[in-house]
């Protein structure tokens, strides 16, 4: 064993210097296969009713929704619904279901299937099921017409276009195979691609569904491969070597380098994604609003934007990212001001800092780590000792949900992006009081705030302007309470092969490539 040491050591050295030289092959030389390489595992939840994670990309290629939202044009595009109308009070919505659509199981799409799909998702109550909360009743008028009755005038057209929880699946597949069938790694969608195979968490392969209603006349890919490659340098090399068509989550250093490669195209698009540091409002010393405000004044925001994000982000104003309706330009922003922070700490009874905090972030996320280190350095100037701990998402989340409050972290760093295109997704999930902890990892509880956003949500279908006003008031409360650190609204920067064509970023479906619309063309 001792003699093997030197050998083992050399192996480690080579590994350290050469990680990434050997990427796994995608066999991409045959033209109709597209390869999407992500930093994250492709599918967390296989069940379309439960889906609320990375699988949004795979799901939106296997399954479809009634409508799809195009925020750039502010238009809803028909997908499984060919048309819809809402009553003047916004409480009754009728959708025409597309005829001649086949599920991958061979069964035909009908209004019944739509009703059963949505009802199953609602009943399971997992993932994004809450988006259906305003729906009181679903009525099937005829095999291709369906009517929704709402309890309040919510924007149902946006809800049915959600990237999560609104996918229509073949309910017969569940009836025949049991409730857990999806979770075991099966699917029964209508999308252009169907599941061919998957290997654990690393790889998912989709192949084209011959009977897709859109047809296969134009230029399309026959197969789509999704792979998880955790190493950023490897991802960058794979796209350079042509082993990947589309790569996400590259460190900005790599982007700068890839820009000079003519075979690579870099896209840069605004997103609805922001990065927050949720402050534990229930645990001392952060249960004191003054301390939370002090820390909000101790974050070097400009340095984060300029040096870490290289300008691919802007400092957030409150929890709703710029560009999304409900974003409030008039909200105050905290700026780096250590004197003010010291002052606030003094008022809070910590004239000389002197406490310890734990910050958790998702390990492997370079941006989060660098920000954590920067914040640690800045807090240390207030004599606040910040322990930063990178953890895989599941344990990080579990710690946040720990039964004993004292075991939980003080600062929870995470990204948020909306399920469907509404500010309520940010305001509700992260800050509305919860009986059992889910995503309110600030443990924020404020009945006035709850009332404002619930009210806003209820009227957002009928009176958008008033809703925006209420959401604005709620955000003022939140920012004044300093329930979270608001780091930045992100810009998505992605690298793809220059000959990968037809891709259009849609911030309502973050990270999703609708592969049916793409093809490999000559430059």
């Amino acid at each position: 064993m001792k003699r093997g040491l030197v050998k083992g050591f050399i192996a480690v050295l080579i590994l350290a210097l050469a990680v990434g030289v050997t990427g796994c092959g995608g066999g991409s030389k045959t033209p109709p296969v597209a390869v999407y390489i992500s930093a994250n595992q492709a599918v967390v939840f296989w069940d379309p009713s439960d889906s609320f994670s990375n699988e949004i990309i795979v799901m939106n290629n296997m399954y479809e929704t009634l409508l799809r939202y195009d925020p750039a044009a502010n238009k809803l595009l028909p997908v499984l619904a060919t048309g819809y109308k809402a009553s003047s009070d916004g409480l009754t919505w009728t959708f025409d279901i597309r005829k001649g659509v086949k599920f991958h199981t061979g069964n035909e799409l009908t209004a019944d299937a739509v009703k059963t799909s949505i009802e199953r998702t609602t009943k399971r109550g997992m993932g994004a099921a809450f988006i259906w909360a305003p729906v009181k009743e679903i009525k099937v008028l005829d095999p291709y017409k369906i009517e929704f009755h709402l309890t309040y005038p919510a924007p149902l057209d946006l809800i049915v276009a959600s990237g999560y929880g609104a996918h229509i699946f073949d309910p017969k597949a569940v009836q025949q195979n049991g409730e857990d069938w999806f979770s075991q790694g099966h699917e029964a969608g209508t999308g252009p691609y169907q599941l061919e195979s998957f290997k654990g968490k690393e790889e998912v392969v989709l192949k084209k569904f011959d009977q897709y209603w859109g047809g296969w006349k134009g230029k399309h890919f026959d197969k789509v491969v999704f792979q998880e490659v955790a190493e950023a340098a490897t991802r960058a090399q794979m796209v350079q070597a042509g082993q990947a068509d589309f790569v996400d989550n590259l460190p900005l250093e790599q982007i700068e380098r890839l820009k000079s490669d003519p075979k690579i195209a870099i896209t840069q698009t605004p997103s609805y994604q922001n990065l927050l540091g949720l402050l534990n409002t229930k645990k001392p010393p952060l249960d004191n609003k003054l301390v939370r405000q002090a820390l909000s004044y101790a974050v070097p925001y400009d340095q984060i934007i300029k040096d870490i994000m290289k300008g691919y982000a802007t400092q957030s104003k409150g929890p709703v990212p710029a560009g999304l309706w409900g974003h409030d330009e008039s909200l105050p922003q905290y700026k780096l001001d250590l004197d003010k922070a010291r002052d606030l700490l003094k008022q809070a009874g910590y004239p000389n800092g002197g406490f310890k905090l734990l910050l958790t972030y998702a390990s492997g996320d370079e941006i989060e780590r660098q920000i954590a280190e920067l914040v640690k350095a800045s807090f240390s100037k207030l004599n606040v000792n910040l322990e930063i701990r990178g953890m895989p998402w599941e344990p990080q989340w579990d710690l946040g949900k720990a039964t004993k409050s004292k075991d939980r972290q003080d600062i929870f760093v995470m990204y948020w992006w909306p399920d469907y295109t509404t500010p309520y997704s940010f305001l509700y999930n992260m800050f509305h009081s919860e009986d059992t902890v889910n995503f309110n990892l600030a443990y924020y509880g404020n009945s006035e705030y709850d009332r404002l956003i619930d009210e806003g949500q209820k009227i957002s279908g009928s009176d958008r302007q008033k809703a925006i006003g209420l959401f604005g008031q709620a955000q003022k409360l939140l920012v004044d309470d300093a329930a979270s650190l608001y780091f930045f609204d992100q810009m998505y920067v992605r690298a793809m092969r220059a000959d990968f064509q037809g891709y259009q970023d849609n911030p309502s479906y973050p990270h999703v490539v609708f592969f049916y619309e793409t093809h490999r063309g000559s430059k």
Partner: protein
Amino acid sequence: MSAVDPGREKGRRFALPGLAYNLYLLRKNVLTLVGLIVVLVLVLVAVLAPVVAPYPKDAFADVHTEHRLQAPSRSHPFGTDEMGRDMLSRVVFGARISLTVGIIAIGLALLIGVPLGLFAGYFGGFIDELIMRITDVFLSFPPLLLATAITAMLGPSLTNAMIAIALSWWPWYTRLIRGQAVSLRERGFVEAARAIGVPRPRIIFRHILPNAVAPIIVQASMDFGSIILESASLSFLGLGAQPPQPEWGLIVSIGRNFFMTSWWYVTFPGLAIFLAVLAFNFVGDGLREILDPKTREG
């Protein structure tokens, strides 16, 4: 103690006194000498880290993102990292961490392993059987795997990494010392001590232990390198030191993201690991030769 071998008297070396002879052996063995010099430099650097490092504060919490990822220059001979910290300072303080980890982990392993080995060897029988089967269980796992599992259980931190390394390492010492104890307990001086009624603990720790120390020293000095490597590996995997600690393995791990664009990032901490491990191996090998009566005869 043993009868004089007549052949030895002819040798010139026999006439040299102990220390001089040892130095002579050391000089003859160039690799050991080189290793020893590197180890001494490392120890000096670690002890004098705040003096040697050009920017001692950079080793820990200080950040200057405006200087991020600068290539080596006169003001930053090893370049800077993505937080704008001076790499030389971090590598220098890394020596401190690595040596501390080595000392503590080996110390803990010895603390567990040596008494157990002594008991097993001295008492024999059931106690021997029990202790040795336990060590067999531990030895059946590759040490890195076992340490990984333990840190995963305890939670990632440098302290836990040290505990994990010690827990995966002690059986080697138990085995080694048991072998020594088994042969020593039959020797005349032990028998004599027993005969005049010296209590057992005293026999074990005053008579057997000192005579079994040489192989432990050799083993420990060779393990030092392995342990530095193991702690670097654990940190590389995210299970040991946590950012912003300037642990070599951790720096290499983070540097992977930048190695296509900033060659110096992984190179210098990588070289530091390389040199440290190699040096301790040379020293360990040399010590074995010097302390081993067979090779001494040359």
